[in-house]
């Protein structure tokens, strides 16, 4: 079992939100909201998202999207453009992150958003998830 996983040992494949919009193969997706200064995001990237089993499940069954809530680049989906919204000197949030990631009026990082293959948001969680918790989450969809 372990050795067969070893053969597929691979790196996590990233998809962008724009690509998600144009994919023809239906798959559920996981959107991972991060920020540059977010230590727990980095921790997840260096632990859970490096775990072979999780990487394999994500690569084979999901689309994985990492989205920096403070990214400056515009995102164009169809005819609509989503922009970075500055809130002060050198600080701000991307409106796309605000729309999809705000839970209870607060946008946290990390935030995990799960979409089913119909691109319906089925689950959101604001906070660090360890490998086991993430596994349970991915199995439930």
């Amino acid at each position, binding site marked *: 079992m372990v050795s067969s996983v070893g053969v597929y040992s691979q790196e996590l494949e990233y998809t962008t939100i724009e690509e998600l919009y144009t994919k023809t193969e239906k798959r559920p997706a996981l959107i991972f909201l991060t920020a540059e200064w977010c230590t727990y995001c980095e921790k997840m990237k260096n632990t859970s998202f490096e775990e072979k089993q999780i990487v394999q499940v994500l690569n084979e069954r999901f689309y994985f999207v990492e989205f920096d809530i403070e990214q400056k680049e515009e995102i164009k989906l169809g005819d609509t453009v989503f922009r970075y919204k500055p809130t002060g000197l050198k600080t701000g949030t991307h409106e796309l992150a605000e729309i999809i990631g705000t839970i209870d009026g607060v946008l*946290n990082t990390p935030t995990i958003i799960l979409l089913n293959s119909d691109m319906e948001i089925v689950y959101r969680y604001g906070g660090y998830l360890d490998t086991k918790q993430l596994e349970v989450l991915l199995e439930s969809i």
Partner: protein
Amino acid sequence: MRNLFIILFLFVLSGSLNAQLSSITGTITHEKDALEFVNVYLVGADKGTISDSDGHFTLSKIRPGEYKLRVSYIGFKTVEREIKIEYGKDQVLNIELEASEIQGEELVVTGTLKEISRSKSAVPVEVFSPKFFQMNPTPSLYDAMQNVNGVRPQLNCNVCNTGDIHINGLEGPYTMILIDGMPIVSGLSTVYGLSGIPNSMVERIEIIKGPASSLYGSEAVGGLINVITKKPSTAPTFLADAMTSFWGELNLDLGGKFNLNNKADVLTGVNIFNYSNPIDNNGDNFTDVTLQKRASLFQKWSINRKSNKLFTLATRFLYEDRWGGEMDWTRDNRGGSEIYGESIYTTRWELIGNYQLPTTEKFLLSFSYNDHHQDSYYGDIPYFADQRIAFSQLTWDIEKGKHSLLAGTALRYTYYDDNTPATASSENIEINNPDEIWLPGIFLQNDISVSEETNLLLGLRYDYNSAHGNIWTPRVAYKHSFNQKNILRLNAGTGFRVVNLFTEEHAALTGAREVIIAEELKPEQSYNANINYEHKIYGSSGNYVRLDATAWYTYFTNQILPDYESNSNEIIYDNLDGFGVTQGFTLNADIELNSGIKIMLGGSFIDVHTVEKDESGISQRNRPLLTERWTGTWAVSLPVSRSGLKVDYTGNLYGPMKLPVLGENDPRASESPWWSLQNIQMTWNPQNSELEFYAGVKNLLNFTPPSNSISRSNDPFDRGVVFDGDGNALATPNNPNALTFDPSYVYAPNQGIRGFIGFRYNIR
């Protein structure tokens, strides 16, 4: 179809289209509780939405027809309903969801915001979240700084308890304090810059030790503390934090936000602090801790513009009434020479604004203004002062391939006036001549992403000081990430500073010492370099360790140093005829174990010295007063099972410092001992509760400085002191050590062990 995108478009389109067609509204519940974020999807109409915090949902603009409504949420059974929509007929549909058996393991909310982190920038910026400061709650950010390695709040006066912030052994004036990146705190107001910012309004605090980016000018050689206030998306709807200690200190923080017709988001914060219970535990007949009443109001408007561009306006108002002195002092004694007291009334207001110009290019106009008025008496010596600082800055952000350019121009105007000869005309002391300084500047910074791993930041700033002429400040910062876990940073730059004597020296104000300026002071020039290495370890079972080491070196020429030692009644200011050095290294460790235990440790070695030739031409090495060689801080957080109970143990340790004694016969120790403040706290936050309770004990070791710290506290007006012709105190039978009244011998707060209790109420 792609529901996520429909949701996104709905957010964008709602409001712009008229609802001519029918709509479905409803509430989604589970066992009478409203369910938030349930996916509601109308199959066949390609419309979807999510329920809000009250479980409500609305699907509008639906054409007549037959549809299937699907309601789904992880952990619950999906519900499908056939629905017939008739033209112009709105429907209400309430749906109860049943829990499904395959409910995932219940998730306990753990990490979102780390207590301490480091920004990705090439300039070493440490970021502290409010969570860090909550481990040892303090009524003001000034006191909170005691928890940060290498940063020490230094009280300058035993009586009025005003102070400044020392970073890596450098005095307060080398520290720059900013609010939202604006230099609105300086000189007169250092202590007020950090007290009276409601904690509820703080999103994070960024600390840069050593010279910062050229964006911030040339003064902050010691370091920079930038208080970033919350933005509407991170602020809670309502927050209250109330704390009291067994000394009778009461601190209340209130914060809230509201949205004004989608035109603006408004954040409001209020801080009230009251300590009105004079205590004299050390028996010197002087108040141990200064009595304080403080109220501060902060409001920030984020105005929504169609273009999404930034427009914020913030204002802060602060009023403070503090006094310290002999225990029997009353307000009737203010300014009198019967009973000694220091009484300070402060009124201060600030305005901070940011406006992005409506141009395609990214231009940002920032402006701030503050007005600080101090009405005070130190014993019978009046001190009335006004300080106004106006600041404006226009920056231009250009992103081009690997280059991220920032060009800008800034103008700072400082006005200072007081009732002392410092602001009198040099020809006629009767004529008032307020001090006005214009400081226009331009700067250019290029942050180059040389490669995926390497960043190079080059900056150059030019300022023109109306009193001192040209000031050039170059900066270079280099960052190399060997991988995600090993990062190296190198920084170098210069600094420039002019001393502002009368606003820096408390002892001059109290009349305890007279200020002597030996010659015309030249501006001080400094050169700094530092190196930082960060190493992260991610254990397989979720353990995490971050190690962070920094070494620095600063060389000063023309250093302006106060000399307390040549004459005990004077502070002599002089340009150093030699050079000054501060150097050292610091190590921080941030450990987070799988079990939830967090340990943050920091230690620094600091060497501050000057080298100057004495009269016989031999170079003498001298260590300035109140600089510690060794310092350490720690914070340990232990979660107690899953009950929501947490224990925090915080503390700091300082090595000996040289202290300002009054001559050789002064019985007070000329060096402070090793001392440490340690605190323990328990926080209880029942799960899903908006209420959090905390209680603890501060200064567990009950450390207080010696009770004779104020010299001749029995004779604060020096009535029993006999002076010689030069103003030196003479030894007399009732003054055998030839002392005068002096409250400026202080290295630690006078407050011993005490309990505290408080609660936080947080509605998101």
